[in-house]
């Protein structure tokens, strides 16, 4: 099995030059312009929070809510790490947008045959042995790309060797773990990071709990209904037989 790839974003290092978002827009053929939020033409953007710059993008969860929600399986977690999107399967139900806790999936509301747009961590470039365009464009290595284990190790090294870092990696536990993770010298809560409501549990566990009951419901419910049907039929048959007997008795009597 191939090793899982990840991106480490170091908020302390980011200088806010926006090279990542411009490159992203170039490789996707989108108009190159800074936007203040993720959109269908800005799959990553640099979010200014006070004096800090936070690059926002899809976090590529280990157990993604969007992929669990997608009824046709157009969204998938690949073995390599990226959460990919098969535009040929998508039917435009937009459930992924409801499911994603970060509001990452964006819709082409302006088009007549709209598709969902989100970062796929340059999956095709990765398959060809390259790295995501945004990482390549970063002039100060505020984003680095590599094997997940190696990057996690690197992140802890940086935190350990520099006491100005918050002693925590955003993405090791959040949403059950993500393949894009952040380290920062400012508290994540002050930088607009989403606090996971489900603790370190992936969100799909919430719907799995409900879906897991369905075989039981079908089996138990089905047999109960069949039993009720049998009882009500039996009651009718008995009543009918009794009626016939009384009729026969009356004739004889």
């Amino acid at each position: 099995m191939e090793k899982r790839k990840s991106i480490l974003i170091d908020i302390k290092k980011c200088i806010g030059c926006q090279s990542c978002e411009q490159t992203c827009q170039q490789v996707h053929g989108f108009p190159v312009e800074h936007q203040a939020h993720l959109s269908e033409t800005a799959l990553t953007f640099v979010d200014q929070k006070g004096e800090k710059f936070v690059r926002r993008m899809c976090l590529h969860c280990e157990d993604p809510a969007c992929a669990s929600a997608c009824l046709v399986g157009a969204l998938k977690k690949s073995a390599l790490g990226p959460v990919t999107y098969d535009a040929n399967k998508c039917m435009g139900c937009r459930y992924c947008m409801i499911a994603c806790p970060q509001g990452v999936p964006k819709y082409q509301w302006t088009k007549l045959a709209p598709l969902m747009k989100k970062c796929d961590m340059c999956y095709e470039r990765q398959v060809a042995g390259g790295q995501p365009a945004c990482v390549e464009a970063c002039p100060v290595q505020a984003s680095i790309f590599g094997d997940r284990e190696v990057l996690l190790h690197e992140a802890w090294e940086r935190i350990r060797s520099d006491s100005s870092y918050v002693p925590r990696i955003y993405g090791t536990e959040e949403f059950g773990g993500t393949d894009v993770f952040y380290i920062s010298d400012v508290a994540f809560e002050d930088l607009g990071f989403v606090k996971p409501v489900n603790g370190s549990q992936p969100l799909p566990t919430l719907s799995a709990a409900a879906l897991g009951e369905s075989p039981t419901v079908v089996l138990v419910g089905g047999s109960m209904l069949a039993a009720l049907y049998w009882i009500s039929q039996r009651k009718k048959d008995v009543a009918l037989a009794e009626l016939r007997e009384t009729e026969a008795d009356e004739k004889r009597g």
Partner: protein
Amino acid sequence: MTIEKNFKIVTFWRVISAAIFLAGGYAAYLRFLKGWQASTNLTDLQPWGLWVGFGTLCGVGLSAGGFAIAAAVYLLGMERYRPLLRPAIVLSFLGYSTVCTGMLYELGLPWRIWHPMIYWNGHSVLFDVSLCVMCYTSVLLLEFAPFAIEKLPYPKFRAWALHWHHKVLIALVLAGVLLSSMHQSYLGGLFLIAKGKVYPLWYSPYLTTLFYLSAIPAGIAMLTIVLYLCVRSLNVKLEFSLLEEMSRVMGMLLAVYAIFRMLDLSKGGGIHYLFVRRIETAYFWLEIALLVIIPLFLLSQSRVRNNPQALYWTCAVVVMGFMANRLNVSITAIDAMTGANYVPKWPEFALTMAVLTGAAIVFRLSVIYLDILPKKEEPKPLRWVNVTTPAEA
């Protein structure tokens, strides 16, 4: 053949219907040729809106009467409800038809509506919902089919089809009850994964149970409304005591729902938000008042239950409360968390209304031309008394 008295082409309701269809047609033009932004106020923060919240969630929920009555008559042996069976099935069938029609404009790529049949994702609640709705709509079509088949002028085919239908009917009903129970619950289950994007007053790990428990009384209320209107405006008869009896069952089901909802709110985090000074609190209490408090009070009064018009309005309150609940879960609760500030655009209303009006007209025609409800014996209008129609000759 019955001949209508006072035959008029232009009537009040026909003008209204025509206006709705005209608006709906223009809305469809906007949706399909001008796009989403011309026809909806949907955004990335509120991607579902009225079409899903009202068209799908309310459409499916208010069509729950069909499976409830079918289960009562066929599986539980409650023979006295048999006169309600046919109208309930027609109502549900048409309800689900509106939901399926709605998919054609609420999906981004409606020509791929068949995709869930071949691309499966068993982890998706929406996949289960779509499969159940597809299967159950087919079941409803099959349950509805004999009402049309028995009117066909081909005796041999008729006898053959009805014979086979009779043989598989119980299996259909049983499958229908299971499918309904599943997808009525799973419609609530859709929002489980969106924890954190659903305002705490409406989020619960038991959203599935809550949706199921509320759908059955709401389906009964909808059926009562429709039956009342049929008796009032069409030439049919129905024993009112049936509706009165059914309203007691509805009251009990609503009470069960109310208790479950209360327990759920007190166990989950919702209870801390009951009196917070926010607009959501008002929407919540409006919903609770309409769905639970007012109907339970009214249904406890025997003079309300025994008065057709009062019962009709009580059921209307239940249906409104039900709609408030579904819209709150799907729109208010999401808006509160994402700050979408969504207000539907008029074409969203117009398209929904057009589809519902279409269903209402088909229902009316079914009652008039098929044997859905027993017809009243009507004296022939005097003017036409000497005309012999070909059917009688």
